[in-house]
């Protein structure tokens, strides 16, 4: 398989796994880490999957100070670039001027694709085999800090 074919496959496997694990939407960096490729490569492949309606785009506005998500926009919604925005999820009570750098692209599994993955998993479980289950690429991270307390 060519390099581009391998990359495509790895990205698709990562997307399948995240979808199987009920991801509400992920960043290209998550897929890049799982597929062990550059974020830019992952982004290009993911956009391809958007074209194929496997994924949908969502745009998130994050507070430039604390990084928390303060708003979400679907494709086609107007993002308030250049306008003042405030949220009590930000640490500062003052508003900020929305900049392109505050907008993050999230890839959301389409309903149809999510249903396909669920069906695949159910069929695999019904047959009592693991082959239907999406192979895990995602290393289990450290637990939440709360669980780490002695």
């Amino acid at each position, binding site marked *: 398989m060519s390099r581009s074919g391998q990359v495509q496959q790895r990205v698709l496997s990562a997307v399948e796994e995240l979808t199987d694990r009920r991801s509400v939407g992920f960043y290209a960096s998550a897929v890049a880490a799982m597929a062990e490729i550059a974020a830019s490569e992952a982004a290009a492949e993911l956009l391809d999957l958007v074209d194929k309606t496997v994924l949908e785009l969502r745009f998130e506005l994050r507070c*430039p100070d604390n990084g928390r998500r303060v708003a979400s926009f679907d494709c086609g919604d107007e993002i308030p670039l250049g306008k003042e925005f405030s949220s009590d999820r930000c640490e500062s009570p003052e508003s900020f001027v929305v900049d392109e*750098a505050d907008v993050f692209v999230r890839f959301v599994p389409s309903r149809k694709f999510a249903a396909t993955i669920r069906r695949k998993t159910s069929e695999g479980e019904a047959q009592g085999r693991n082959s239907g289950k999406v192979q895990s690429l995602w290393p289990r991270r450290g637990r939440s*800090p709360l669980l780490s307390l002695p």
Partner: protein
Amino acid sequence: MTAIAVTSTLVELLNAPRRTLLKVAQNAGISISRDARKWDIARALAEKFGDEIPEEAAEYLYAGQRSISWIRLVPESEEFAIGDPEYTYPMRGMEISKEEVEDALASEFNREDPFDIEERPETILEGQPQLIVARPHEDGVLFLFAIAMRKGQAIHNFKATSVVEDDFFPVIFRPELGLFEVRASADQARRLRRTWLRQFAAGLGAQSVPVSIPYSDLRLLHGELNAKLDAYTGAETDGISIYETHRYTRDEETCDDLLNEKRFQEDTENLMPLHGDLLFEFSEEFDEVRVHVSCNNGSVWIRTAVPEGVLRYVRAAMEKVKGV
């Protein structure tokens, strides 16, 4: 209430920390209470010294507790995708000659001598930075901007009034690097870039690009400053976790530097870095300077009140990281 006219010197003095102004006033033999407000101390100094700001205060004028963002100039004709790291990463922009800068400023102020500080705008506009002073600086040109910020509502005599306060901030332009060093909040830097700087850059045949600070730069800066990572905030990226962001702060009794800890590497491996706090020693007097590096908004916030020398040290470290 009678409004009192404020000189440029007074505005600049207000940038320095209160205790610095008090020390300068006491050393100058100015009779002033130890509990005097910063405003009163600055006024007393401005009245005594006029335009000749004492050196002790001068080294804090544009330093102090500061956030710094960098914006570089690139040719107007160049096109690039938003966030393209080839454009947002470098810290060096297109070189501008001293004459071009002076011509642009002369045009801005509509006068022959762009550095004549006698005149200034009559009205400070809300939400839009205005250039009020430009003067030669050892690094190039110092700009001082003012912007009116709405602070809220106040009730007086049963009437509500909008409270608006002028915010002043310095920007150092280094023409040989085509680089603006904005010493203000990241949000003010953005306002500046979207308004005044857009026009000024266009006058020079350029456009402005904010300089990003990715996590790799934070790590390199950690090395250059011989710092410790004291706090880190990162965001989850997979859309599965119940947590949106994680903040890790160092327990100084058990950990010297978060970046050297395997546990920290594991816990943050798949997070999107947002910002980190670095602690470094500059001198005996400033043995623990805290620098908040935001990968999120591309700013470096020096949270300790420090003189100009410390800012230059941090800037030099960042330049080395960026390969300037």
